[in-house]
């Protein structure tokens, strides 16, 4: 069976009866369900179309009145899982205008998660002491109220870029600019990205393939010139990307029509439904378009 078909089958097989996806088994989670919707976006088979429709229904049913999503139905608080759910709704809204209200709420929630560049005492103190501020301007936390990190900030950037164009919301570009600035400020000494931790007592911390790829994809989507050293490092990572997630984000960040980044000799296997979705999104981006990048 061709790889893309195997990935579709994997997703169809793993979908829960309620329409959501678990990471591997168990109850449905917002993040893999959002990625599942994105992965099946261009599938035409009846089972895939039906699966995508059920997943969208599950996402709609799980949205909180605040506009955000909790990561799992057993969790009360909304988290950065909202970004992936929002990207899924954005992909579907082009064909289903009934999602507009859901999206407005979701975008408002996501926009409110970006830490502002205000004149708080803690921010001024951090600047005076040359230490990272607890709520770095432009960053987004995984879990509300905690510090901002690279992955949730990059995912929020993808949301703002796509929504700014699709919904003609130019103010969201300002947010994307703020989140991009944060991402650029959080590079490791090797010019890649890790989770985004403080350099204190971790001055020589290494970057990771997956966060480097995702950060580059977000910066590219936000039309930021990609730092040459970061691109070079990401390209090196593809020889040993450590996971299918790392490889997929890097390929999505660096590929363009006519430029394919080759898989390594040993392709890391997909371990979760999220992995299956990311790999399928990458494969479909080669035939269609990269759904994380702005059109035109």
């Amino acid at each position, binding site marked *: 069976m061709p790889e893309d078909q195997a990935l579709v089958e994997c997703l169809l097989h793993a979908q829960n009866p309620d329409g959501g996806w*678990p*990471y*591997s088994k*168990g*109850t449905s*989670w917002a*993040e893999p369900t959002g990625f599942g919707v994105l992965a099946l976006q261009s599938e035409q088979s009846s089972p895939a179309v039906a699966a995508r429709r059920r997943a969208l229904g599950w996402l709609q049913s799980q949205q909180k009145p605040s506009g955000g999503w909790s*990561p*799992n139905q*057993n*969790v*009360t608080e909304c*988290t*950065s899982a909202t970004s992936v759910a929002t990207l899924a709704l954005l992909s579907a809204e082009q064909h289903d205008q009934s999602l507009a209200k859901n999206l407005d709420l979701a975008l408002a929630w996501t926009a409110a998660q970006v830490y502002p560049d205000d004149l708080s005492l803690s921010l001024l103190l951090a600047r005076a002491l040359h230490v990272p501020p607890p709520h770095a301007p432009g960053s987004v*936390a*995984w*879990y509300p*109220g*905690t*510090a901002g*990190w690279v*992955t*949730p900030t990059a995912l929020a950037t993808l949301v703002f870029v796509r929504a700014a164009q699709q919904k003609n919301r130019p103010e969201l570009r300002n947010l994307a600019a703020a989140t991009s600035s944060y991402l650029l400020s959080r590079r490791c000494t090797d010019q890649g990205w*890790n*989770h985004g*931790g403080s350099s204190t*007592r*971790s001055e*020589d*911390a290494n970057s*990771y393939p*997956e966060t480097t790829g995702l950060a580059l994809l977000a910066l590219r989507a936000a039309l930021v010139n990609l730092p040459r050293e970061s691109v070079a490092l990401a390209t090196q990572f593809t020889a040993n990307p*450590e*996971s299918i*997630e*790392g490889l997929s984000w890097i390929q999505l960040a660096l590929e363009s029509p006519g430029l394919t980044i080759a898989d390594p000799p040993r392709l*890391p296997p997909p*371990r*979760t439904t999220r992995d299956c979705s990311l790999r399928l999104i990458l494969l479909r981006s080669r035939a269609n378009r990269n759904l994380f990048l702005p059109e035109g």
Partner: protein
Amino acid sequence: MKLNVHRRHFFYGIFSLASACSKVRVPSGVANVSIVKADHYQIDLARIIRGILIEHQVPVAGQRVVLKPNLVEFSPHLPINTNPIFVAAAAEAFRSMGAKSVTIAEGPGHRRATLDMAESAGFFGVMKNFEDNFVDLNLDDVSRVHFAQPFTNLDSLYLPHTILGADLLVSLPKMKTHHWAGATLSMKNLFGIVPGGVYGWPKNVLHWAGIDKSIADLHFAFPKQFCLVDGIEAMEGNGPIQGTAKQAGVIVGGAHPPSVDATCCQIMGIDPQKLKYLELAASRSPLQIWQPKQIAEPIASVAQKFRLHPDLQHLRLT
């Protein structure tokens, strides 16, 4: 399963309350801690671990045992992760003593690709059908667990069902220095049970609430634990990731995590009474943790001065 988890939550709450009430009691006893020399991983580690479990009269038969190693990074060459041979030996020991089930479970704090990391660390090569016996705690289903008298301002945490459903939680840390907490041992190892799927990578809610207090809260949430510390090849210097290898040649085990960790600190040349999380644990422990009863080897026979981060020299045992 669902009812079982809820009963446990009730039990944890009662236990936390009881622990809090014990704050006013004067510690009246000491825990047993085993110190066993083990120069390398190619010896019969399962026999050694079985011996420790028998010595401590750990009830294993019929129990659902969850082994929680420390899996942090893709780095087969540095002693960052609990050695897979050590974990396999522990699994064999518990199985041979009649455990109903032995599950290996971990939720790494920085990297999401848990199984890829486990493969890179050598778990797939050492343990047959590793994937079938492993749970990624970052992605497991969760329930909220309330703490009655937490040290942190967190009144609850979401925790994975695999951990909540265990009869016995076995902490299998790597003996390492830690550039924030001083040392990362069996208590700090429980950070890995907090689900990244809810709190993210890293699990910053714990840092935000205070590393030391969070370590203490997680400890008191799990009354039935056993600890086996992999100190055969340890880490010194800028741990837990950027340190260097230290041949410590020791396994430390016991049923009382603060006592086990205090013993490890003394082996490492760290003053346990200067580690905040141990001080917090001691303040509510019914046992006196600083000088546990040592079984097998005395501390002096295995003690080494682990290099400490320059900012942490004040933790040195004098």
